[in-house]
C-alpha cells in the first residue's frame, strides 16, 4: 500500500531534518518520489495534486479559494433555511437556483482569470458572482428584489451585472450567453486588450443553436473565449443523456477542431489547471476552448422541493436517486479543498472552523441587509427602458396624456 498524503508529508518533512519546509519544497519532494499514492478519502490522488498545484497558487490563494467556496455554500444553505422558515421572506423557491455541489467549477475557473476578464453565466449564477468577488449584500438584496440590490428589483435573481469585477451578466435563457460572450471576445480582440471572455453554462445548453454559432465562429476567428459546460447531469429533471447523443459534451469540440477538455468538476485544482491552459491559449490568440466539468447539483433545479431546514441538498426528487446525491456528496468539492489545505498544513481544523463561521456570519449579514432594505417604487416600472433613464408613458390608466 502506498503512503497517504499525510504520511508522505511527514516523510518529506522528516527528510528535511526537522527544518520546517514550505509547501512548495514539500511538493517538489513529493513529486520527486514519484510514488503512486493512495486515494484520499476525498478521492484525490496526491500525486495528481502535486502536479496540479502550480507556482502561481500561493497558500493565501488556496485559502481564499476555500473561503469563496464556503461563502457560496452557506449562501445557498442560508437561503434554503430562510425560505422554509420565514413567512415574510421576500423571495421564492422558483427564483433560487442553488449552486451547492458545483463550487469548484466557478472558483477553479475564475482563479485562472484576472479581475478584468469578463464572465457570463446563467440562472445558476450566484456561485460565479461570489467567485468573481461579488458583494453578498447586493446579491441578496437582488434576489429579494430590493432597491439596494443588483438590478434594483427589475430582474431579481437571473439578471445580474457587476462590471467592476468582470461579472458581465447572468441570464435566464438556455443557450445564448456563449454567443454573446463570443461577441464580447470579438470586442476584446478589436480593443487589443488581452482579456478573455468566459461563458458558464450546463449540459442543457449543448442542443442550443447558439452552441454551434459561437464555437464555429470563435474557432474561425481565434477568439479569446472559454466555454465552461458544468455538466451536473441534469437539465431540469432530464438526465443529460436524454438530450445528448454524446457521453462527453466535450467531444463536440472535435467538430470545430478546437480543444475539448473533460475535467473533474469536484476538484478545484483540476478545474483551475484546465482553465489556466485555456486562458493562456486564448490570450495568445490561439482561439477558444471547450471545458466540460463533470459535477453535480445537490439541490433541485430550483431549490424548493426536497429541502429541509438545516440539511444540505434536496432529497426525494422523482428524477434522481437519493443515493446518487449522497455519492456525489462523498466527493464534496468544499471538503476536498478543506482536506487539501489541512493535509498540506496550510490551515488547521480550528482555522477551518473559524472560516466556516466567518462565511456564515457574512452571509447572515447580507440577508439582514437585504431584509432591511427598501423595496422599489412602483412607478419606477416605467423607468430604465432606455439609457436616458426617464420614464416611458403610462398606458394602463385612462387619464394619462396621449403625448
Amino acid at each position, binding site marked *: 500500500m502506498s503512503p497517504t498524503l499525510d504520511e508522505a508529508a511527514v516523510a518529506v518533512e522528516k527528510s528535511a531534518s526537522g527544518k520546517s519546509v514550505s509547501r512548495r519544497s514539500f511538493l517538489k519532494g513529493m513529486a520527486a518520489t514519484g510514488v503512486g499514492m493512495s486515494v484520499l478519502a476525498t478521492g484525490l490522488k496526491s500525486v495528481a495534486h502535486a502536479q496540479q498545484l502550480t507556482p502561481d497558487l500561493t497558500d493565501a490563494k488556496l485559502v481564499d479559494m476555500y473561503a469563496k467556496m464556503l461563502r457560496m455554500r452557506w449562501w445557498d444553505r442560508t437561503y434554503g433555511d430562510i425560505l422554509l422558515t420565514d413567512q415574510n421572506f421576500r423571495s421564492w423557491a422558483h427564483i433560487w437556483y442553488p449552486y451547492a455541489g458545483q463550487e469548484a467549477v466557478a472558483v477553479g475557473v475564475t482563479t485562472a482569470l484576472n479581475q478584468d476578464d469578463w464572465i457570463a453565466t446563467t440562472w445558476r449564477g450566484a456561485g460565479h458572482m461570489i467567485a468573481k468577488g461579488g458583494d453578498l449584500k447586493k446579491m441578496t438584496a437582488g434576489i429579494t*428584489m430590493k432597491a439596494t440590490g443588483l438590478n434594483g428589483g427589475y430582474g431579481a435573481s437571473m*439578471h445580474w451585472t457587476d462590471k467592476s469585477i468582470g461579472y458581465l451578466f447572468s441570464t435566464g435563457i438556455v443557450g445564448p450567453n456563449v454567443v454573446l460572450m463570443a461577441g464580447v471576445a470579438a470586442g476584446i480582440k478589436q480593443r487589443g486588450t488581452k482579456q478573455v471572455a468566459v461563458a458558464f453554462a450546463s449540459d442543457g*445548453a449543448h442542443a442550443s443553436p447558439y452552441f454551434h454559432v459561437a464555437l464555429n465562429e470563435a474557432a474561425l476567428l481565434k477568439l479569446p473565449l472559454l466555454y465552461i459546460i458544468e455538466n451536473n447531469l441534469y437539465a431540469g429533471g432530464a438526465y443529460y443523456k436524454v*438530450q445528448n447523443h454524446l457521453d462527453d459534451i466535450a467531444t463536440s469540440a472535435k467538430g470545430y477542431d478546437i480543444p475539448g477538455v473533460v475535467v473533474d468538476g469536484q476538484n478545484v485544482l483540476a478545474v483551475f489547471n484546465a482553465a489556466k491552459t485555456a486562458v493562456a491559449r486564448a490570450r495568445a490568440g490561439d482561439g477558444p476552448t471547450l471545458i466540460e466539468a463533470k459535477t453535480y447539483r445537490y439541490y433541485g433545479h430550483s431549490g424548493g422541493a426536497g429541502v429541509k431546514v438545516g440539511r444540505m441538498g434536496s432529497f426525494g426528487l422523482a428524477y434522481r436517486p437519493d443515493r446518487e446525491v449522497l455519492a456525489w456528496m462523498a466527493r464534496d468539492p468544499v471538503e476536498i479543498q478543506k482536506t487539501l489545505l489541512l493535509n498540506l498544513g496550510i490551515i488547521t481544523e480550528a482555522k477551518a472552523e473559524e472560516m466556516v463561521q466567518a462565511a456564515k456570519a457574512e452571509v447572515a449579514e447580507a440577508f439582514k441587509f437585504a431584509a432591511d432594505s427598501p423595496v422599489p417604487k412602483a412607478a419606477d416600472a*416605467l423607468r430604465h427602458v432606455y439609457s436616458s433613464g426617464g420614464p416611458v408613458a403610462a*398606458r394602463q390608466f385612462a387619464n394619462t396624456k396621449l403625448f
Partner: protein
Amino acid sequence: MPVKGWTYAKFEGIVQGVGDSKDFLYTSEGGAGTASWQGYPTIDFKKLYGPNSVIVTGIDEMWYTAVGVGAALIGLKTVVDHGMYMANALTFDLIHQQASKLHFMHGGDLTVPAVFVQSIAAQEKGLAGQHAEYEEDSWYMHSAGLKTVIPTTPYDMKGLMIAALRSGDPVVLLEYAGFRGLSGEVPDEAYEVQIGKAAVRSRGNDITIVSSGNGTPQMLAAADRLKKEGVSVEAIDLLTLHPLDTETLVKSVQKTKRLLTVDQSKYTLAPGAEVVARVAEAVPGAKFKRIAFPDAPVAAAPELLEYNRINPEHVYQAAKWLLAK
C-alpha cells in the same frame, strides 16, 4: 356539462382533431405527451399513436418546431407544444419565415397542417422580461398564412384545437401560461370553435370592451362590476387574432358607439390597435380608449410588475372614463 382542466381539454382536442389516423407527431419540451383528469382515462399519445409519436429530447425549441413543420409537409398532423415562452422568438423563423409562407410560395403544392402551441408567459413575479413578457400576440397577428388563436377557457382550447387540426393550415395557438390551472365545462364529444370568430361574452348597449388572452379575465371582472352599477356592457373576447372578426367588432360598436380595448400586450401595436383601427374606419363618430401594458419590459419585483400589468381596476376606470366622454 362535464368539467375538465385546461390541459386535459387541450389533449382531448388533439385526439379528436387528429381523428382516426396515426399520422400524428407531438413534440414538447415540457411534458411526456400524457394528460390526466379525474374520472377520465389518461390520454397517452405514445399508447394511442405509437412510441415514435412523441418527441421530447431536451432544450431545443428550434427542433420541436422544425419537426412540427417538416413532418407536416409529408402529411402528418403535428402539434408543437414546447411551452417555453422564453424561447418563442427562437422559433419565429421556422414558424413565420417557413411555415406561414410555404403553402403560398409553392402555389398550394405544400401544406403545413401544424399547430404551434406558443405559450405566453404568465407574467410571474420574480422572473422579469425574458420570462414574463406578454407580447407574442402581436408577432403572430401580423403574419399572413398563419391563423392565430388565443383561447381563454378550456372549452375554447379544445374547440379551437380541433378546428386548428382540421383546418389543414399552420395555426399558432397562443396559450397564456397562467391559464394552465383553469378548469371549466368541456363537452366529451368533438366540436369546433370557429377560427375567425370572436366570442361575445356579455351583451350590452352602453360600451363595447374588447380583449383577448389574459386581458379577458381582467375585462370580465371589470364588466361584472360595471354591470352591477347598471352599465350595459358588451364584452368581446377575440379568440382569433388572425383573421380578425371585423364584423362582430364593427356591429357591436355601431350599437354602443364606445370602444375600449384592453391588452396585456405592450401598447404599441398591441391587438387593440388593430381593433380600434378597423372600427374607426367603419363607425364614424364612435369614441375610443385603449389601455395596455406600457411600452416597457416586465419587471421582477411585485411592486413594479403590478404597476404596469392590466388589472380589473384599470379596465373599470378606463370604462368609466370613456362612458363619461
